[in-house]
């Protein structure tokens, strides 16, 4: 009986130890946004971390620069997809501000595949 109790307490302590060591860092203001693609308004947005660590294997957001051209694309969890391109050195400079944790939004000019806008947010709230 005493041995059983000892084992039980030991297991509980072990469980608690392992549990507390595997707790993620939840503190702090955080916004990890999944990818949203709105075909009707030609807009896509989301965070790198939100997409990368989402539960599905569909979503992503990317921007590529081949000076002086920039291409951004995004796919949401349902497979909706948008891609745009812009030839402008200032847009290349903007894409260079992207980090592993950026939040990216872009929009297409109506009826084209030309980028109309691009917003890149680098903030502590988007870190994993």
């Amino acid at each position, binding site marked *: 009986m005493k041995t059983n109790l000892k084992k039980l307490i030991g297991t509980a302590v072990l469980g608690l130890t392992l549990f507390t060591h595997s707790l993620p860092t939840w503190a*702090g*203001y955080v916004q990890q946004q999944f990818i949203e693609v709105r075909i009707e308004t030609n807009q896509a947005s989301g965070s790198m971390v939100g997409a990368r660590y989402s539960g599905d294997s569909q979503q992503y957001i990317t921007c590529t620069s081949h000076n002086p051209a920039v291409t951004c694309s995004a796919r949401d969890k349902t497979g909706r997809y948008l891609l745009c391109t812009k030839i402008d050195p200032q847009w290349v400079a903007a894409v260079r501000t992207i980090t592993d944790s950026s939040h990216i939004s872009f929009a297409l000019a109506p009826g084209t595949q030309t980028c109309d806008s*691009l917003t890149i947010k680098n*903030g502590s709230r988007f870190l994993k």
Partner: protein
Amino acid sequence: MQAKLKNILGLVALGVALLTTTVPTWAGQVITGGEVSIYIGSDHSSAGGTMVGARYSADNKQYIECTTYLSTTIWVPLIQCYAQDKAGQHILCSSRDPKFQETLQAMTDSSYISFQADSKGACTDIGISHGSNLLK
């Protein structure tokens, strides 16, 4: 005998598990805190803080970020930096000066960010620092 062996193996497994999960991140110099601080004056305001310090702070208020905007159809500030401290006090600065966009290219997930705004909210300075002591 078999039970003893099982016990020993169990203890070894436990030891390895605890060893690998309890290794602390004590090594190296680390800037403790790095939380967002804000100064609001009559002629200018300023803010500073580390990405890591803000993100992993104990509160859920503070954050610091810089944004790059581009649009062919509507007016946007080229860049904007925003900081909010743990008390909810915040400041923002905006600029269309390309030199600040170049500055923002240096930002990483572990940067220390500081910026200054004049009384109208225009950015007068943005600084990005990197250091091993700023890493998570």
